[in-house]
């Protein structure tokens, strides 16, 4: 029994050093050396292109809703900010979905509120725009989700719908390697390009 215990302790410490430190630190070193932009969070001047933000102005394209945020459907969690990777505008949060099931009355009511929110903005929403994501801060929408927002953005900015359609087409990424995943538009990059247009 003692020999099992001694071997267990030796093995546990060996693994801790080898995998907890050597593997992790070597990985961090290689990552920082080869891909320092990605390894530090793909940060740009306006935030991370990989982390969704809450957009409220009609002069910008909006991302998908969050359970918190200005278009929080659930009044109980109505807080400014939204899309909380840890803290957003002073409100603490974290990644996560709303977890409301497919036959939840609360989800029906929340979705109705989101549909009404979009109608008040002059947008006829696509399903993505009334569906909360899995991470809570999905940075992407589909090109179609951006196109339906063009009337709102065009009215607020005075930029012609045709120019906005070209902008969306330019910012859209097709499926990766031609077949993986969906066509997407990164909302932050799209809005940065939109701001540059003005």
């Amino acid at each position: 029994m003692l020999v099992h215990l001694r071997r267990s302790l030796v093995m546990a410490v060996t693994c801790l050093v080898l995998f907890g430190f050597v593997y992790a630190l070597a990985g961090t070193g290689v990552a920082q050396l080869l891909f320092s932009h990605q390894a530090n969070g793909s940060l740009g001047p306006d935030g991370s292109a990989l982390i969704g933000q809450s957009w409220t102005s009609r002069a910008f394209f909006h991302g998908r809703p969050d359970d918190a945020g200005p278009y929080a459907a659930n009044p109980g969690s109505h807080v400014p900010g939204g899309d909380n990777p840890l803290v957003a505008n002073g409100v603490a949060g974290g990644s996560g979905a709303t977890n409301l099931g497919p036959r939840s009355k609360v989800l029906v009511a929340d979705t109705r509120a989101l549909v009404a929110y979009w109608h008040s903005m002059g947008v006829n929403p696509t399903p993505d725009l009334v569906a909360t994501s899995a991470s809570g801060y999905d940075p992407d929408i589909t090109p179609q989700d951006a196109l339906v927002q063009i009337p709102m953005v065009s009215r607020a900015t005075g930029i012609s719908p045709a120019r906005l359609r070209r902008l969306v087409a330019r910012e859209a990424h097709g499926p990766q390697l031609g077949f993986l995943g969906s066509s997407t538009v990164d909302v932050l990059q799209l809005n940065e390009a939109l701001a540059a247009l003005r």
Partner: protein
Amino acid sequence: MGFFWTIVTLLAALALTWRYLGSYMAAVFDGRVRWLRVLERPIYRALGTSPEQEQTWTRYATSLVVFSGVSIALTYLLLRIQGSLPLNPQRLAAVPPALSFNTSVSFVTNTNWQNYAGETTMSYFSQLAALMVQQFVSPAVGVAVALALVRGFARRGSATIGNFWVDITRCMLYVLLPIAFVAGVVFVGQGAVQTLAGPVSVHDALNGVTQTIARGPIGFMEAIKQLGTNGGGFLNANSATTFENPTPLTNWLSIYLVLAIPFALTYTFGKMVGSVRHGRALLAAMVLIFGVWVGFTSAAEHQGNPAVAAAGITHQPAGNMVGKEVRFGDTSSALFAVASTSTSTGSADASYDQFTPMGGFGLLTGMMLGEVTPGGVGSGLYTILVYAIIAVFIGGLMIGRTPEYLGKKIQAKEIKLAGLASLVMPLAVLVVTGIAVSVHAGRTGPLNSGPHGFTEILYALTSQGNNNGSAFGGLSGNSPFYNVIGAVDMLLGRFGIIVPVLALAGVLAAKDVVPESLGTFRTDNSMFVGLVIGVIVIIGGLTFFPAVALGPVVEQLSHGRFF
């Protein structure tokens, strides 16, 4: 069309992996691979053991159980003293006792059930030294058990079944470490974060939003999280977050890594027992069930979300996008989910709680089949071998021949052990679910009402009993009740199967081989594949049908009703 090519490329990659990783692993476990002997030898010296020192099944099992106990204690300790340890940029305090207990059991048993949100609970030190270490160790322990059982079939008249310490060392050094490292580089290259610096604050002048973004050494943990069928991510939303799983390519890679070793081990098995045909028969059973579950679940998720339809948006061409990420879409999220729940992984690139009732049914039943399609690293192989033994027994009864598998007579003792191993999991899951729905502390857990609330409880305890770790995230699991009952469920589901399997390995290794004759029941043809599939589906189906009927089936059938 994109989904079609996703499947085709995965199949092609997995086919190559099956053949070449399978034979590489056979060489590793035979001791023929030595390129890391500068690390391997000192470990044996420090342990005071060597590959020549073989163990009987009782010593093998004692080593395994004591080592797991020590690992649980050490992990628990590290989580409890987290506040005094380095690499804690957010100055997070100690993890509470009940949560530390559940989490340490969870990571040591390869479950990776998480009753906490990583970014707000665990320091970088805890993530790496306490949790990620077990993501290397626990799959290696699973492989060791599988190897012991395979040797039981391969050897004749042998008192020993291998050396536990040597088996786990070789698995970690030669299989897990190099593959995880290469995959980690790909994850980071695609956008996964890998830094020891703390959270970063950013301000966007365009919309006036200031965000603090959680970061950490995520990318390389992601690689071993998937490869070791662990599933416990750095961040709360797991593989749905861009910092863990940034692109559709990393999503594809995640699915590949999850399935690579469990499928390839059937080749390793075939090679080690001297009949690749037998490995191919088990592979066929795994692949056929897996394929049906992928088809069923992705079809279910390609339907719209009933609640969104009730809110007036009836046209949902992209399927159920509630709780899914745009970059992955509906069918790829479903494929990921089935890969994760048919192995013992439990990672999530979508919110499983928000799958359609039949989509959730696919995930829940994938676990209930005992996780053999293809199952976890190591655990998938040893569990399907238990089912294969039951299948030859039933086949033998039907045609009146003495059941044999790989020349070993399957007699009363073997059947008792196989029966025990196959009954522990359903018993644990159903009893603890019964307790949870009978007491107040259990009933206050679910977020959703109606049948979906029951499914949340059933899913949580099925997931922990099968060492899967995926969740219907609405359940508030971080209560003393769920932390403790979940830990008991995980321990039973792990060691309640491992100990009988090791006993089985010992009994089989001691036996002589009966020469094949005309009367031998074939165990490498399509008839046998059908029999194994039948056993898996009938045992899983009959055991869990009543429970499943009360959850997702009722939910699916209650058209137009909301709860």
